[in-house]
């Protein structure tokens, strides 16, 4: 039977689910409702999850395309002891959350982006959100959050090696 790794947990895929979108599979079948549906056509970024640490718009990704891959959703971002990931904490500290509907997608987009850029400038961050819509915040505090997160992550790295 086909399997998929979701938030480090192996899931077996039933044949009847194979034609679903990844979004429906997560939300309806696994009840992982942290991933949101904003437009259904991959234009708003609310449904972004990470597939092998790359951002995918889950509403336009067929489940059959991600079999055997490693999926990270917003539910998988916390540490096992319940503490928050630095990106999640940065979103709180920067005031980057208003209605919160775009937040999970924004946080995961940030995650993938910071994997590639550890010292991002404002313009780079803005471009990273090219496929993401936030209607509440005007993006300013989200950009602040990305910068705070990048600094926190860097600092922690240094402390690891000291």
């Amino acid at each position, binding site marked *: 039977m086909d399997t998929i790794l979701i938030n480090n947990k192996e899931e077996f895929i039933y044949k009847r689910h194979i034609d679903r979108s990844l979004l429906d599979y997560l939300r309806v079948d696994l009840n992982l409702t942290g991933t949101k549906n904003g437009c259904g056509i991959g*234009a708003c970024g609310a449904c972004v999850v990470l597939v092998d640490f790359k951002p995918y718009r889950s509403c336009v990704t067929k489940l059959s395309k991600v079999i055997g891959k490693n999926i990270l959703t917003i539910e998988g971002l916390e540490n096992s002891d319940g503490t928050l990931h630095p990106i999640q904490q940065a979103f709180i500290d920067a005031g980057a959350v208003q209605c919160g509907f775009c937040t999970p997608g924004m946080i995961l987009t940030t995650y993938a982006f910071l994997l590639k850029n550890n010292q991002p400038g404002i313009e780079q961050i803005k471009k990273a959100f*090219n496929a993401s819509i936030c209607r509440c*915040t005007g993006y300013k505090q989200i950009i602040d959050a990305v910068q705070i997160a990048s600094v926190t992550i860097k600092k922690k790295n240094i402390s690891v090696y000291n």
Partner: protein
Amino acid sequence: MEMIMNDMLLTNNTVIPLAKQKVRKRKRFIVCIKKPENKTVSSNSIKQSITIEKSQIDRQGRKSVFRNDAYLKVTGRAKYVDDLKTDQMAHCVPVYSDYVHARIDRINTRTCENAKGVIRVITAKDIPGASTYGQINMDYHMLADDKIRFNGDVVALVVAESRELAKSAAGLIKIEATELPAIFNPEEALAAEPIHDNMKSNLVNHYKIRKGNTESAFEYSDYVVEKTFNTTFVEHAYLETEGALCIPKPDGKMIVYGSMQHPFNTRKWVAAILGVKLSQVEIIGCSMGGGFGGKDDTAAIVCARTALAAKLIKRPVKMIYDREWSMRESYKRCPYKLQYKIGLSKVGHILAVQCKFIVDSGAYTSTVPWLTFRSIVHCCGPYKIANLKADIYSFATNNVFTGAFRGFGSPQINFAIEQMIDICAEKAGIDCIEFRRLNMLRQNSETITGQILRRHKVSIGEVLEKVVKTIGFKNKFKKCSFGKDQDEQYGIGLAMSYRGVSLGAEGSDFCSCIINGQFDGSIILETGIHENGQGAESAMILVLAECLGVNKARIRYAIPSTSHIPDGGPTVASRGTLVGSAAVTLAVKNLKRIMSKVLSDKLDCKPREVRFKNDHLFGKTDDIYISWDEAVKLMHQKHKYPFAFGHFKAPKIHWDEKTGMGDPYFTYNYNCQAVELTVNSKTGEIRLINIVAAHDIGKIVNHGMLEGQIYGGIAQGIGMTLTEEIIIKDGRIQNLNFNKYKVPKAVNIPEINPIIVENRDPDSPFGAKGIGESALEIIAPAIANAVYNATGKRYFSLPIKIQKTK
């Protein structure tokens, strides 16, 4: 480095974390004394704790940010309506027709009823209660019965075992109808047959203001400027679409979870369609993915239809809108045609204004009369005008209906008047800032409706000067291209406004609050305002903590329910912070009175001498105190509840519909924004460089969220100015999703520098006014003025599309 980064970020997914990531502890006020045994003990530590608390309360200049729901939202735990599930839940979808204006002959539902998984098909004849409803005119047909009035009318509902089955069966419904001539231009509406059978004509409403003598004032004018402006349909684009989950209870009550910004209004719609009393319907709040004025009527209607389905099939029913349905059916920002004629003296005084506005209300009335009331009383901006003739007309058409959208009738007005001001200044040969200074409202000035602005501080000059100085307007204005032949043309522009806060004379303005102190010292707070995503709950928690002198960690905001607290009116009109904080302040006053009466003996003082601060109750001096925990315990032991209700009723206001005179709002806030931009004359691209925004909001409650409102409001305003436009062809919307409807992305938003001005309002018990709408309402004219100063061309229509010169 990248490798380390990877490991760092992967800690949640791998078994071996490199470093344990801890939640950064927020600075929290800790009471230094655990439990004062003896109330007369003097202690340095408690004094020390007082200083800590003071530094927290004193937020001047400090950017604190607090959200009670942020943790839930960053972890994906927050539950929006589509995240809720229940046993036996069926799914409902709406059915539209391709018609725009037609008389329905027959709706054939048989094939659909027999389709796989379909439980029931519902049409208007199945409605047990009222089939039409509305906040002002009862003209909205919850399901189209006799006629289709616009392309977004819902003709039937399909209820099925799954959403997919309901959607696939919906296409099997056959609608036979006779097409009727349709009206799309409001200016042709008056001559056309009424869209609604019970209306005499398509005129929805007409308001006017007559002041002074415009005719003779124009005769005395040295210059007369006349211009016409147009604005368009704009979509709210809340990221979460409309939705509801309705659960019928055995006792006949209908429980409604939904995404809406006016639960009490929703309750009216639901009760109306079901034909039951208000007490039989309970609306329970859940997280809401944005509203911006757009989740009033349509959101309530979606809840009402879902409740109807649940009642008819006697099972829980969920209905979640697709983006295309939401954009097709939900009301939009009203398009305006604005004609202005302004007379000036040689030295630049505005002598007379004559204006006429034509508003497209679309197929239904919604809140257009209230909205046009706001437009007309603000129609001359923050300026002294002695002679005015103003008329606003709104008409029903077969376009998508229009209504509330952040700004509510002001952004359209400001787009025109603030450009007119720049045009007039140029005509009079006066610098646009000087021209504003010359004509603007001052303390004790009279507004166009005859209201004397004496009670609160008139700070339009203050916000103007702050913006001019911060952005360096004078020097930058000289550098503008003014249409010079160059690839990158530079311009700077500015606009300002005053805005009546809260509902004003358009509605009755009140709100209530319940504070419920628990035995263990925790506090449950509830108010009549609603969390739309803007941070209303957090603001109310902060206000309570500050007024009652307790740590905010004690306070939990109760899940709001229309069965618990009285109707607090809609959370619209930038009124949440004002009326909510007022109700909390007054409830705290009552609670303090109740507690002081019981506990003053213990504190060795008179009831009025008891002071509440730093999680303690103090007597005459700081040496005599009891902790909050102890105080509530004592209250309970004495069988006195630390429970209080408070309600705020806005000061009396009035507006005479016949003359347009009166005091339409009890207070105003003051706003000014300036923008720098470049226009690429080859591509026509407008690039915003920098925005400075000053707003007098009364009193800061939650600094970070306040700035968030400014950034977000400006971003929406930028969308309305440059990219957003609902395109309607023969009554059918062409851009029904975000691939074709362009809301601003991060790259479109420039640096924004917010300047907060605090002038506490004497009529607001907490001093706060509001920000939500002011942030959005003047960026369009500021951009338009800057574009003019860059290109030398004036753009009279929204959205601004640059004519390429090369």
